[in-house]
């Protein structure tokens, strides 16, 4: 690891000021599981991905390490460890899909200090991006090595130029819950729905979200689910645990008498952003879920553009979507 300066920030505004002052080679760090161990120790860098020389520690800011329920809505600070979210009785009771997603991340050790903000904003796990010797698009290069290389883990939907899959489990759950995030920047704070937060390679291949280099994620606000809302979380990994998702599905839905009223179905591990399966949601709307779910889930096939080695993920995505919807019905 190259050397760098380390700053303690005591307020979010202080952190923003430091970022603004030091420019794109300054980064915030909380748990450090991705930035320190992944990006910096592996010296992952390129013209589009400068190596950090200033780190600003966010774990010293108490404002963003908390879980609170305000007016029925859940507010979680960005520097809250994933273990706290997974173990929170309030989250388990009201937003079980989020606590399940948080619990499915990595190992207990990493959940103890890996934070929500870190999980949402980590860089993709693509082994070409992470390899020192692959100057890919995301690093400012001019090639996607997944197109011709070992792409069994890569995107089947929404890839263009770059075929990463978004690595975050909590992002999938939060998008399904219709959550929003507060972002602090030099001009103050703003709230952005997760619907608008993630950025695919088509828009900007160098980033996965709208967060600018001088902005800090402050917290996440999750609305109170509709009364009787049903939720489900499924994550398939190559192994049973400790892995990033091959495919994950979060379902949050309102159902009456077996008929789909409203809801969101979001898939992880299939696209460069958490991917909302709106065509499945629409096909279920107003229908008896048990009878409609199979054909509705199969619509995912129309969206899929698999690469040479990952066509299996299409069927897995369809099968898991069906299973997750049925699991939510049974919840």
């Amino acid at each position: 690891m190259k050397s760098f300066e380390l700053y303690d920030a005591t307020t979010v505004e202080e952190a923003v000021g430091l970022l603004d002052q030091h420019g794109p080679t300054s980064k915030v760090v909380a748990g450090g599981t991705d930035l320190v161990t992944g990006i910096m120790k592996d010296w992952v860098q390129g013209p589009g991905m400068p190596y950090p020389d200033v780190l600003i520690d966010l774990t010293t800011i108490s404002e963003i390490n908390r879980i609170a329920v305000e007016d029925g809505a859940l507010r979680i600070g960005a520097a809250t460890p994933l273990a706290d979210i997974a173990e929170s009785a309030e989250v388990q009771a009201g937003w079980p899909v989020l606590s399940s997603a948080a619990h499915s991340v990595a190992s207990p050790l990493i959940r103890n200090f890996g934070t929500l903000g870190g999980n949402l904003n980590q860089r993709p796990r693509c082994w070409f991006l992470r390899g020192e010797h692959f100057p890919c698009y995301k690093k400012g290069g001019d090639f996607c090595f997944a197109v011709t290389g070992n792409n069994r883990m890569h995107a089947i939907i929404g890839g263009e130029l770059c075929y990463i899959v978004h690595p975050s489990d909590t992002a999938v759950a939060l998008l399904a819950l219709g959550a929003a995030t507060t972002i602090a920047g030099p001009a103050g704070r703003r709230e952005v729905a997760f619907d608008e937060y993630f950025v695919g390679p088509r828009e900007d291949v160098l980033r996965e979200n709208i967060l600018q280099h001088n902005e800090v994620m402050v917290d996440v606000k999750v609305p109170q689910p509709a009364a009787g809302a049903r939720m489900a979380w499924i994550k398939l990994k190559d192994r049973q645990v400790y892995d990033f998702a091959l495919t994950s599905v979060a379902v949050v839905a309102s159902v009456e008498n077996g008929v789909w009223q409203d809801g969101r179905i979001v898939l992880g591990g299939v696209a460069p952003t958490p991917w909302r399966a709106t065509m499945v949601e629409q096909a279920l709307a107003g229908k008896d879920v048990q009878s409609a779910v199979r054909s509705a889930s199969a619509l995912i096939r129309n969206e899929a553009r698999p690469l040479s080695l990952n066509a299996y993920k299409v069927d897995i995505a369809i099968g898991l979507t069906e299973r997750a919807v049925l699991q939510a019905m049974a919840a």
Partner: protein
Amino acid sequence: MAPAIRGRSSSRREEIRSCPLLCATAIVRPSPLKQRSDCAPLRRRRPIQVSLSLNGQLRILDCQPGETLLGALRRAGLWSVKHGCETGECGACAVLIDGALMPTCVLLAGQAAGRQVVTLECLAPGQSLHPLQQAFIEVGAIQCGYCSPAMILAAQALLAGNPRPSESDVREALSGVLCRCTGYKKPIEAVLRAAAALRGEPVPPIGGGGVPFEAVFGHGRDGGRTPADLAAPGGGPSGIRTRPIVAFPVTRMSPQPETDVVGHREPKVDAVKLAKGRAVFAGDVELPGMLHAALLTSPHAHARIRHIDASRARALPGVHAVLTHQDIPRVVYASGGQSFPNPPPYDQVSLDNKVRYAGDRVAVVAAETPEIAREALGLIDVGYEPLPAVFDPLQAMQPGAPRIHDEPDAVEILDANRNLVAQVHASVGDLERGLAESDRIFERRYYSQQVQQASIEPHVVITYWDEDDRLVVRTSTQVPFHVRRMLAPLLGLPVKRIRVIKPRIGGGFGGKQEMLIEDLCGHLTLATGRPVRFEYTREMEFTSARSRHPQWITYRAGVQADGTLNALEMCIVEDCGAYGTHGLTVCSVSGLRGLSTYRCPNMRLHADIVYTNKPVPGAFRGYGAPQALWALESLVDEVAAEMGFDPVEFRLRNAVRAGDPLALAKALGEGREGFEQIIQSCGLPDCAAQGAAAIGWDRRADPGWRRDPARPHLRRGLGMAVCMHGTAIAGLDMGAASIKMNDDGSFNLLVGATDLGTGSDTVLAQIAAETLGCLLADVVTYSSDTDLTPFDTGAYASSTTYISGGAVMKAAEQVREKIFARVALMLGVSGSAQQPSAAGMYLRNRSVWLPDGRSVSLEAVALHSLHTFDQEQIMATASHMSYHSPPPFAAQFAEVEVDTETGQVTVTRLVMAVDCGTAINPQTVEGQVEGGLVQALGYAVSEEMAYDQAGCLLTRRFGDYRVFQADEAPELQAILAPSYEPSGPFGAKAVAEIPMDGVAPAVANAVFDAVGVRLRSLPLTPEKVWLALKQAAVG
């Protein structure tokens, strides 16, 4: 849901930050406000001071901003905090921070400011043991002990918040700490046992040495063993799902005299220091002036180094040496740690002007800090001329393929133009005629992938000149004596000027049966005169260490209608990677194992061992057998299924039995001719019967069991495989031992044998104690120091108990004779001094007993011999070798659930019944079996080294490589079904490697049983199973 294992509260942290003592003395990190005024030009490597509570005391650590907490803690002398990776994924470096378990390799030292950090060092003061440590020792949860500090801290964090954890709570709590030795079963058992003890509940006794502290340090007592313990060799807390079953004795072929130490569940002799996290591993020392090495590796799979200029790197302040191929003599060698002369080819030099795989050595640096060394690597200018590369061994053999070894000085490559390292041929009977006369012929091809040993302790070596100008090599190796001999010509030093010390080893699994980095570290000490530490990163473990040889195996089998095997042909293509180390001998073992389990009159082997531009395979537990038995036991299952035979009956009908010869043993030796073998002991039928009963083999007939109404996408299945391995390399392996008697009647046992976490020091001490009639605690074992202990070939080929144990037994018998002679002298027993054994004396309970009932204590014997009359040191040295390699046998069973929609295979249970002869220590045998089963399961379903098209390794961290962890390991059951091997010490055979052999085919056969598809390529990932299901549905 997750158990409450965190104790972190922000208030505690606030407390310490606002602690007046801390504020008065602490230099808090540069505050951002202060920084703003003067930070315009960034100053690099500005040291910071981090104040924290460390094991209850306020400490201020001087750190670099980029330094991890792991590095800072180890520099502060907290050696229990281990380095296993750099990504927080192995957990070996975990400590408690504000009560929560966190890996320190990913935390910046600066981030620990103001926090409460607790390491294992403060768990129990002095020589005392915490109940967790005691339980880990008692149940045998410690093998190599490298992950034990983190495991014990993880358990401590769990029990602090949950004094009554369930088994799944424990599995979850331990799941962040990878263990490659135990399969997690005994650590889980230990935590549950400690939890019960801490709740004040009685815990069941474990046969063996009782309270370990007293067993180790107590004096003049009987070791705490009760008659009840002696009567019950089983044990372990009841009610635990993973409880071991020990069936004693079932198929003993000759009566075994009653034993006091051998055959008992003795705690490991090195367990206390490992449980306490003491500085016992190779890297756990800091020497004055020590430099740190870093290795520059090739980004290209195949390239010539046209020019290399290290002047900028040498000019970097803090750099003391940079070595390239221009700086050291060119000496060809073979890096495998094997007996002299090393099997061919000799195709390596320490640093070359050509690189043959991405990860190959280019240059090595020694600098004052690891960070400077790493920075210097970036300043070495290398001009590569990339060459065409080849990654498929079949292509590599074709005309016109890139020639990987074109250097003129390589020795004994069979055909470098075709990238052929070697070929192996062997046959018995007439294969073609046998096939022609068979009723059915089956031809199948199987692939086994490249996997990594992944011991949690990386390769680490420290070299320095001692006061006599001899080079000391403190290294994590399985083969200290081979390292000394092989190092000498490379460094230009005579063997007598090299001393190799093997401290405790954090697992090896064959990866350390290699002289991997000792040469470069030695060269750096030669160049600088300074002590040098060279430690691999986890990434380098994957890219630049060793692995298992991938093989494509094609079998042709001729079978008669009655199910008799009549002809068997095995063709192997072995991917040897860029260098030939172990390539020939691994492949010979594959052939021997693949053509020995079953009786067959007509057999033929053909093997091609081929270079490719890939990272180099080497020795890995099983050594060719896991590849061969993956293919053989899949094939046999296919034949049985297609011909309508029960898979178990079909196997036993054709399997070898006691009295049978091993037809190919003479042809397939260790790179040379071997020796005829006749099987003298075989418990295979008993293994199959006990294993089948344990797994519930009858359920295969129950369609209702196969389905789960609540989870309609699941199908269950059962599969099995039988295994036969070897014990040591016949006529080649040799071990030696010295025993000397001390004033108090205790003994020093000095062995060259290399305990790498398996427990061999304990097993060897048990053999000595049994023979000398004393307690295990009376034998002080010291192993593997080329200056102080006699020779041993090393820890490989499942040889230590059998070969080194034989040496210990011989030495102990000689000492016993001298003790008898001394007693005869002391008591004036006439005429017996020349033939003391004939006088009917025997040793037991620390005394020599005469037929007339008189006895003399060992202490009295010792004092008499050392001080009283006709003084002599009672001692003996003996060595042992064997022309036998008696095979251990096993039956392995797997129960699986297959998700028919996703293809995911979940192995829910593994059972292994093993005939390893007499289990000298049933607890360590179970440990070998349980750990081996889980390691083999990774090979079966999840582990694989994956590459991009340019031969660049993609799986460079544990996150991508996928080693099983505690909460995903299946239920394990080890069943001991011993026979009595007449050629082994106390009837013992091997057990270390055989657990690796049959799990992959057992799981694949279970998948077939569940869903009816055959998979012939490892690992059995969801994608492959899904694809096979898809094709079956279409077809």
